[in-house]
């Protein structure tokens, strides 16, 4: 129990206690002073104990009758006064205690306390997520309970109620509190040893920067993941030595660049985010002129990507709020609009991108463009996640959901660090390399391979670490043998090996393994199960290795 709560309770109980003591004292004293008459008519004086006994049961309205002898009229007059007097005292006392339970300050102190305890009892590494919304919800959904736990702070108590109703398992401790407040961050466990990091993806760059600064001061070892939407902000965060700055618009810009210049690298990246590993016809970005509608943060990011790819484009300044105010509609496409589309050259263009902040406008812009030029490739920005169905139904070639991109990137960074690393490394290669990799993966593991990350240590690869400790030479190729028949190969590919700070992309199969190596493995469920058996079971491993040495 927190000290503060005890003090609040005690202070509030002061007056009710006083009232009860005084009413009791006066009633007892009166009974002692008034002379009584016993059963034989002799006068007697009540002792303090008699009076105390009588008042105790009278005041609490239990009532046993008159003791020790039947009262005379003087006593009865006093008792009738005392009944009302003490009962009022009791009721006041009970009322005060009830209202104390309902007291806002006390409730707040109690819930702060229980939140603090919940956080304290988390024994896995955990992330503090600031702000609860659809982005952070999807991060919580995927992250919570697997390798990490999550703690949430939000200013708005409705959001916290919403979170509580979600019934996450394992439980997500959540509390109403200002994320820029140091005290709240401390309560949320920023100083705790197992606090892995803090995730701040607020829309407002200023808030993110404030949080990053405070968190950095409070705990240097913390992994701080922040969102930045402008170049200056990005540089500011870099200067603060934050490595994990997530800029959704930057990601979109890069995706467009790679989509146009190196589609297989793009494909590998998208596959890491759940796309199937096959370049479909509609995934190809067209060559030719591009039209961008909307010169906001998204429009500028697309512009950057196109410029880098060397594609011809026009960008149209389009303020969605002003448009809605001026025309009083969210449907794009009156004569003026058609004319401006034609002026931008919609008939000669190969692609149109609607990047305004209004979903309906984005949809209608693309519809009108399609009417004028049925062959045009369409891309849209989607702002609100709940409109997903309309967007899917309207046959847009590519949809960018800023929130989803941000959530995916954050999740991959935290829970799949090797996949994140792979994307970075792959970007340094050229498209031919990527094409070879894609074909190889398709040949070995099929169209829709899964990827797994593992670290070779006692927990994940018991048998293998035993062998390695004995000084055995084990190569990556040895681990690819099937446990059913050691001359057969498992359908798995080692995509990336990380040893300390060194990263080996597509490691050589003759490479010798060391304890602590991290592997990014592409496979299907069945083959990966086999792999896990081999590295964990001594007999399986010896069978597989026996072939290698014989």
């Amino acid at each position: 129990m927190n000290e503060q709560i005890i003090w609040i309770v005690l202070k509030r109980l002061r007056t009710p206690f006083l009232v009860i003591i005084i009413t009791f004292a006066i009633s007892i004293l009166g009974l002692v002073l008034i002379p009584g008459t016993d059963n034989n008519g002799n006068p007697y004086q009540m002792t303090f104990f008699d009076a105390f006994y009588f008042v105790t049961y009278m005041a609490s309205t239990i009532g046993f009758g008159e003791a020790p002898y039947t009262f005379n009229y003087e006593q009865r007059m006093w008792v009738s006064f005392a009944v009302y007097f003490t009962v009022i005292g009791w009721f006041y006392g009970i009322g005060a205690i009830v209202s104390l339970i309902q007291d806002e300050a006390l409730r707040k102190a109690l819930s702060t306390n229980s939140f603090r305890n919940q956080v304290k009892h988390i024994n896995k590494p955990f992330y503090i997520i600031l702000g609860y919304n659809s982005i952070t919800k999807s991060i919580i959904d995927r992250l919570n309970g697997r390798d990490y736990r999550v703690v949430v702070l939000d200013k708005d108590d409705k959001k916290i109620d919403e979170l509580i109703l979600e019934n996450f398992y394992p439980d997500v401790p959540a509390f109403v509190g200002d994320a820029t407040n140091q005290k709240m961050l401390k309560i949320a466990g920023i100083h705790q040893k197992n606090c892995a990091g803090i995730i701040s993806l607020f829309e407002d760059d200023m808030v993110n920067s404030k949080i990053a600064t405070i968190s950095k001061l409070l705990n240097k070892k913390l992994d701080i993941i922040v969102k930045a939407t402008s170049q200056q902000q990005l540089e500011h965060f870099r200067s603060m030595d934050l490595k994990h700055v997530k800029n959704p618009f930057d990601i979109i810009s890069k995706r467009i660049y790679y989509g146009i210049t190196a589609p297989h690298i793009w494909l590998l990246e998208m596959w890491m985010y759940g796309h199937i590993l096959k370049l479909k016809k509609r995934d190809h970005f067209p060559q030719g002129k591009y039209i961008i509608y909307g010169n906001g943060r998204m429009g500028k990011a697309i512009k950057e990507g196109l410029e880098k790819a060397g594609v011809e484009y026009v960008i149209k300044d389009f303020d969605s709020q002003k448009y809605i105010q001026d025309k009083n509609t969210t449907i794009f496409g009156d004569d003026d609009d058609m004319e401006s589309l034609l002026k931008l050259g919609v008939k000669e263009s190969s692609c149109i991108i609607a990047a305004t902040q209004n979903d309906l406008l984005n949809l209608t812009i693309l519809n009108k463009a399609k009417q004028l030029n049925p062959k045009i490739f369409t891309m849209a920005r989607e702002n609100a996640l709940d409109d997903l169905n309309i967007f899917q139904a309207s046959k847009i070639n590519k949809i960018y959901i800023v929130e989803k991109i941000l959530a995916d990137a954050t999740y991959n960074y935290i829970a799949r660090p090797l996949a994140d690393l792979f994307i970075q490394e792959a970007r340094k290669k050229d498209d031919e390399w990527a094409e070879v990799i894609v074909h190889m993966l398709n040949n070995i593991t099929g169209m829709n391979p899964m990827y797994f990350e593992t670290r070779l240590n006692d927990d994940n690869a018991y048998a293998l670490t035993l062998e390695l400790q004995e000084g055995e030479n084990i190569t990556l190729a040895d681990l690819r043998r099937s446990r059913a028949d050691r001359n057969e190969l498992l359908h798995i590919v080692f995509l990336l090996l990380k040893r300390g700070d060194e990263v080996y992309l597509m490691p050589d199969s003759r490479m010798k393994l060391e304890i602590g190596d991290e592997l990014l493995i592409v496979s299907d469920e069945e083959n990966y199960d086999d792999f896990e058996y081999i590295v964990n079971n001594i007999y399986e491993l010896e069978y597989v290795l026996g072939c290698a040495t014989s």
Partner: protein
Amino acid sequence: MNMHKIMSGSFFILAMTVNFGFFYGDPTILIEHSSYELFAAIIVNLIATVLKLGDRTQLGAVLLATSIVADIQLIASATVWAFAMYVMSSVGTEAITAIISLSGGALLANIVSVILFIGDTLKSKR
């Protein structure tokens, strides 16, 4: 000077003086000690205790502790009296000395709290 300070200060001193009034006299003769004074001492002590509830300062906590000690002693004294009178049906010398010495202990606790209270008051004066 605030009202609450005056109230709690006066109750602390009153608790001590009333208790002294009960304690003063031959410790073997019960008639020299009034049961009304014991009653008053108990009530005043309880009030002094309640007035210190919820005081977060260091001194407040110590004062609360001393007056809880005084309460326990005085209530024990009254309990011994009632027990001797009704259960043993005679108040012998042993019971009387126990009653008086228990209240003597409470008096010590009262004196301690008054000294602390005075000390704090003097310290706060510049």
